[in-house]
């Protein structure tokens, strides 16, 4: 059998964003993959070093649409470390609340994406219909469906009253039954299982070696979750149970995301039940002193890190961040060889890639 190369991307029907795969195939089996990125490099990292600390809140929110909340959130935590200020407890709870609401919406998108990639579009529509409830919730509580813009240096810019808390609780509670049904349908659908089980396997050893994070790591039996291992915001007070699956295939990663939606709903309920009173943000505009700091958070796709270095002016000297997808691309070198050409899109979809994030 002769081997040849096929290009996938940068523009391809199943890839929503541009990235280029150069695949070596033998017959119908993939034997090697080479990735070339950079098609949507927007230079945001450079831009953040031309703007002041407050302008960067708006800018970092626009790095990614689905994890838009985590970028300013983590950026703020790094800047707060530099300034040496503490966020009021209610502010921390509200940050975590916004984070979990975004996580539910983001995971539901990816859960819908899997059936879409394998051609089961009615299931995709069904998942997106459920997700729409969360989009409405975000629009009602935060005033926007994607960029909810809740974080500021020293706390949050929103507050909720009892009525809103009740509305959020009712919405997530109403979400449970359709979600249970959706999970049941996905688990019992022969076509989804045939296309996802045993495909794109990443073993635990390889997951540790490649340093993968988020649902990709947890689908391979690595229980790493920033909320548990390096707690931040309200996660030192709220217990998070990481959802872990052992098989390391596309299906395991899908199950992890389904499990995490339920876990996030539980966290939202617990946050609202134990929400303390008090101020939501630090009362003054803080001085950002000279120094460097890192902060991490668990974005829907995994660990997100921000490194901020200040030279005492109001413009940061260096900001660098690493998005979760960035680390997970490398693992495709292991997941893809041995799979069929038809499995490529679903494997790529299973790492929940965000290409604009990767290239910034």
């Amino acid at each position, binding site marked *: 059998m002769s081997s040849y*190369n096929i290009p996938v991307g940068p523009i391809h029907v199943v890839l929503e964003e541009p990235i280029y795969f150069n695949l070596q195939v033998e017959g119908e089996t993939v034997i090697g993959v080479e990735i070339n*990125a950079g098609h949507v490099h927007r230079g945001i990292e450079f831009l953040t070093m031309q703007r002041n600390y407050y302008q960067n809140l708006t800018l970092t929110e626009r790095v990614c649409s689905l994890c838009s909340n985590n970028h300013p959130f983590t950026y703020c935590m790094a800047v707060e470390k530099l300034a040496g200020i*503490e966020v009021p407890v209610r502010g921390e709870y509200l940050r975590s609340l916004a984070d979990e609401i975004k996580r539910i919406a983001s995971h539901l998108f990816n859960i819908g994406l899997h059936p879409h990639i394998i051609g089961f579009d009615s299931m995709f529509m069904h998942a997106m219909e459920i997700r729409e409830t969360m989009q409405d919730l975000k629009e009602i509580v935060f005033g926007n469906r994607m960029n909810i813009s809740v974080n500021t240096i020293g706390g949050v810019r929103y507050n909720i009253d009892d009525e809103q808390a009740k509305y959020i609780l009712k919405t997530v509670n109403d979400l449970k039954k359709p979600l249970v049904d959706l999970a049941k349908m996905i688990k019992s659908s022969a076509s989804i299982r045939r296309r996802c089980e045993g495909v794109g396997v990443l073993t635990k050893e390889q997951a*540790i070696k*490649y340093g993968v994070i988020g649902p990709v790591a947890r689908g391979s039996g690595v229980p790493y979750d920033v909320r548990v291992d*390096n707690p931040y915001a309200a996660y030192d007070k709220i217990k998070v149970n990481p959802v872990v699956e052992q098989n390391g295939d596309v299906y395991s990663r899908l199950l992890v995301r389904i499990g995490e939606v339920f876990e996030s709903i539980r966290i939202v309920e617990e946050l609202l039940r134990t929400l303390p009173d008090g101020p939501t943000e630090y009362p003054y505009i803080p001085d950002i002193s000279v120094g*460097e700091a*890192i902060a991490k958070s668990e974005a829907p796709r995994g660990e997100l890190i921000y490194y901020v270095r200040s030279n*005492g002016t109001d413009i940061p000297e260096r900001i660098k961040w690493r998005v979760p997808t960035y680390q997970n691309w*490398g693992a495709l070198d292991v997941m893809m060889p041995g799979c069929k050409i038809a499995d490529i899109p679903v494997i790529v979809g299973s790492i929940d890639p965000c290409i604009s994030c990767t290239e910034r």
Partner: protein
Amino acid sequence: MKEEAMKSFSSEMALKLGNKFDLRWDIDKKGFVSGWCRLMDADDIYQVAEIVADFKGRVITLSALNTPSVLNEPSDASSKNEPIKLVINYHLYFDGINCTVTITLPDNERAVRSITPVLISADWHEREMQDLFNIKLLGHPNPKRLFLDKDIHLADHAMIPLSEAMNGAGTNTLWEKIMRSGRKDENTDEQL
């Protein structure tokens, strides 16, 4: 567990590098540990990578800095005339703790020993740094361009227009290039 990891990392470092490093730990109220380590000799980063690999750790990210200001001195405009100094921060993670290891490249040197052979999680980060900061990697198993097209000439601190970085995609440039290339090797990616 975190205290143990901090202790054993410090002792491993002392064993391998002697006193050629400077390490301090910051622990916040929630137990988030971030270590800050400075190496005297840039080549020692390879040995640090070996230690982290023994701990089954990984690289979170790299951040390269171009002539950073000295943190404990007030910065002034005259510092802009200083010779270029490249600093690389290696943000590492193992056993629940984060550690940033900093090296400063010797003057006028734009090359660093790659740690990808011991920590494969550094692969993309090192290649990105090579693309964007023009720092050559020594001993990297696959030192190809990651973000930039291979036809772009790399110069130190050059700004590259987006249209060039994207190889003219979205304009007529790409199509003209394809037409120019004729029919030979139509199927290979080399032409695209």
